[in-house]
């Protein structure tokens, strides 16, 4: 246990002992012991379903444990609701922060404890609220207009606001539930700066992440969870990539380098020319070949998803053309595009990619319902089951049966179903938007292998990813997108994490510099 930072009693030692949590017969946490120390960033690692999030939720009062004790600075505590945890100085920053779209930033920060004037009629003290909100943001060096509507904030900004909320509530223990996965590299840096700042002020921080680089960068202490148990807990000098990975998956793993082969052909599968839409993106043009894995790199919000959605017929375009196997598909609707062999697996599974309350089989066939055999206009459910079962087998979805709803599966397995849904159509072109978002390490490799196998079969694949490692590992060629324009193209040996990063971050920094100067 690191005792590097001296601290007084009452400054935020948060101890969990023997925490257990069951959902019905399923044990999610099986007796976790963890101690969070002030002035220290404590990282939780583990595969999806290992119980990290649940542990945080228990510690922050969102979920009641079945057993075990919590103690802050030696006082035993138990929480019926998160705000009780706030009162004891514990705050959880959720991955997708709680947005109050119609309220101002300042009010969102003070929700639940708006300051009121004293006197006979207690009215909201708007002025005090704004100045205190302003002050909290200043502490974190955040330039956000407290009078703006919350719906105008980016996810990164929303997370920052959540940090500020923790400060406003006087919380000393701040838990971050996988904050970085929706963020761009740039935004992650900014978040880490904030976290370091808080750590240096003596706050107690805990953090969940899947990204090894981040973990190695920010953590003072790392705990690894597997199947609801704590399998490792080490302070800074003792951890390294291999150790953590092997602990997480329970077997030896090594980082796989960039693949050496390519099966890219020179036959164009998808040709995009001069695609533009309003201020989102302009003059986007590229050619995707059969057997090629083409990466779209860039910051979140650079317009990559919008480009993909435009190609897929989900968004209007101002100009430009999209040609699939020689046919212009830019005026077609989505269903017609699917029928012609182009598919798009969106980034946000829960909202766009899958229908969580529906079954595996139903989700698999949802991309092209007509692929289920019909007689007299009636779907043959047995055939649908067969297709579902085939997908489950082929993509190794871990489930109890094809009639399980997707909601009951882990993120990785959900993603495999979404994969199977599209790949079962044997498309000629597949656009995969953040294919491993929210997927744990073990499943990631399976998904990479699947993508490579499809490319080998001749499919043309466009991968949109914010994970440098992923792009470097998968892609034959990478296009960098910055503010809606393709700013660089890399291929072959030129594809290294540094060069990919620089290809768009260079623009970002230059732009920022301009802004600061102006």
């Amino acid at each position, binding site marked *: 246990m690191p005792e590097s930072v001296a601290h007084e009693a009452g400054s935020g030692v948060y101890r969990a002992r023997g925490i257990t949590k069951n959902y019905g017969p399923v044990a999610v946490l099986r007796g976790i012991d963890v101690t969070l120390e002030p002035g220290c960033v404590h990282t939780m690692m583990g595969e999806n379903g290992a119980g990290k999030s649940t542990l945080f939720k228990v510690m922050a009062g*969102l979920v009641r444990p079945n057993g075990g004790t919590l103690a802050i600075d030696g006082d035993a505590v138990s929480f019926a*609701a*998160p*705000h*009780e945890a*706030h009162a004891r100085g514990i705050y959880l920053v959720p991955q997708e922060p*709680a*947005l*109050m*779209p*119609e*309220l*101002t930033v*300042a*009010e969102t920060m003070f*929700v*639940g*404890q*708006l300051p*009121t004037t004293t006197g006979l009629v*207690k*009215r*909201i003290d*708007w002025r005090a609220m*704004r100045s205190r909100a302003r002050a909290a943001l200043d502490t*974190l*060096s*955040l*330039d*956000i*207009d*407290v*009078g*703006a*509507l919350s719906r*105008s*904030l*980016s996810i*990164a*900004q929303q997370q*920052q606001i959540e940090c500020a909320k923790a400060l406003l509530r006087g919380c000393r223990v701040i838990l971050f539930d996988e904050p970085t996965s929706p963020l761009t590299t740039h935004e992650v*840096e*900014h978040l880490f*700066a*904030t976290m370091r*700042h808080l750590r240096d002020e003596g706050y107690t921080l805990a953090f969940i992440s899947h990204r090894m680089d981040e973990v190695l960068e920010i953590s003072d202490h790392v705990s690894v969870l597997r199947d609801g148990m704590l399998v490792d807990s080490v302070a800074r000098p003792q951890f390294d990539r291999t150790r953590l990975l092997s602990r997480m998956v329970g077997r030896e793993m090594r980082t796989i380098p960039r693949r050496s082969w390519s099966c890219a052909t020179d036959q164009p599968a998808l040709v995009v020319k001069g695609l533009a839409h309003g201020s989102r993106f302009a003059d986007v043009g590229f050619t995707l070949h059969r057997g090629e894995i083409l990466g779209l790199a860039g910051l979140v919000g650079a317009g990559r998803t919008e480009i993909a959605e435009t190609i897929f017929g989900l968004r209007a375009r101002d100009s430009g053309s999209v040609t699939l196997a020689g046919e212009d598909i830019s005026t077609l609707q989505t269903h017609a595009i699917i029928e012609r062999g182009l598919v798009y697996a969106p980034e946000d599974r829960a909202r766009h990619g899958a229908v969580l309350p529906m079954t595996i089989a139903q989700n698999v066939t949802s991309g092209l319902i007509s692929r289920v055999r019909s007689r007299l206009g009636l779907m043959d459910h047995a055939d649908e089951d067969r297709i579902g079962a085939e997908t489950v087998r082929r993509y190794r979805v871990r489930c109890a049966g094809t009639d399980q709803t997707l909601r009951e599966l882990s993120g990785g397995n959900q993603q495999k179903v979404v994969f199977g849904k599209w790949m079962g159509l044997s498309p000629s072109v597949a656009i995969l938007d953040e294919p491993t978002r929210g997927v744990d390490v073990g499943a990631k490799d399976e998904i990479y292998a699947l993508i490579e196998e499809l490319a080998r079969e001749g499919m043309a694949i466009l991968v949109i990813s914010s994970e440098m490692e992923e792009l470097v590992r998968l892609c034959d060629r990478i296009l960098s997108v910055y503010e809606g324009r393709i700013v660089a193209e890399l291929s072959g040996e030129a594809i290294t994490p540094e060069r990919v990063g620089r290809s768009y971050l260079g623009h970002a920094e230059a732009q*920022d510099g301009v*802004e*600061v100067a102006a």
Partner: protein
Amino acid sequence: MSATAAIPVRERAGAARRDPRALVLIGVTVATILLVGLVDHGFMSLQNLRFMVLNCVVLSLLALGQTLVIATRGIDLSVAPVLGLSAMVTGLMAQTGGLPLLGAFGLALAIGVILGTLNGLLVAKLAIPPIITTLGTYSLYSGLIFLYSDGTQVTSVPAAYAALGNGTVLGIVPIPVLVLGAVLAAIWFVIGHSRFGRAILAIGNNQAASYNAGIPVTATQVGAYAVCGVLAALAGLMFVSYTGSATVTTGTGDHMELQSIAVALIGGTAISGGRGPVIGSVLGALFLSVVLTALVFVHVPPIWYSAGEGLMILIAVTAGSRRTA
């Protein structure tokens, strides 16, 4: 501290942002008055203006309550029978039992609180969707009217009530308008400057987050329905005072529940919750009253009045969605 980087704020709206809908409503209302007034000067007469305002008082009260409930992402269909029951009970007790006016206010308050709270509890505690909850209580409360009245009806009210419904202060300002003004001011304060009101909006924005932040979600929801009930009951008292009559179909017969929703929507309330344009709701009721009167003045056959109302809803809502989209 390296993090001085500026994250651009995409939209700078300013805290004191104005609801454009209120201005638009005022604009079109004035325009309607002027246009129809040109055709028929009687339309612009002080007396006619006064009655157009008076006619919208009851509906405004309902719409204010409805706005609060819709702001929590709910809906209240039972306002119509609550209005009817309140009108019937206070009216009958005044007619036969000589209930003093103050007692009538107390009685209306009690009816509104009890029935509204029941709605709120069903929604918040049993998690029954609001539209279904109030559909069910609509039947229950309507039944209560029949049970209570047992075939009698209100045909006249004592002078104090008539004064409440028809009197003026200093011969100029009608008392119902004063009542509405006071209620509007109170609700405006509640929604804009009280913790309860802000909690209503927060719940409409994000219920789970509100709960996590320590907002008493159940109590706030129940409170919103209770206030809505009270306003509906007050509307009932104003109704019986203004018209001097109440029957078993008062409220429900005129589909006041749909009217109040329509008015709230015209006023800029979003059915998805989180917004509470209370002034807009009253302006919406006023606009409706002006337009329906205007239709009489320009000799549109009566059968088309409700079609006119339907068109207004469509125009108001689609115009609104364009603006916010």
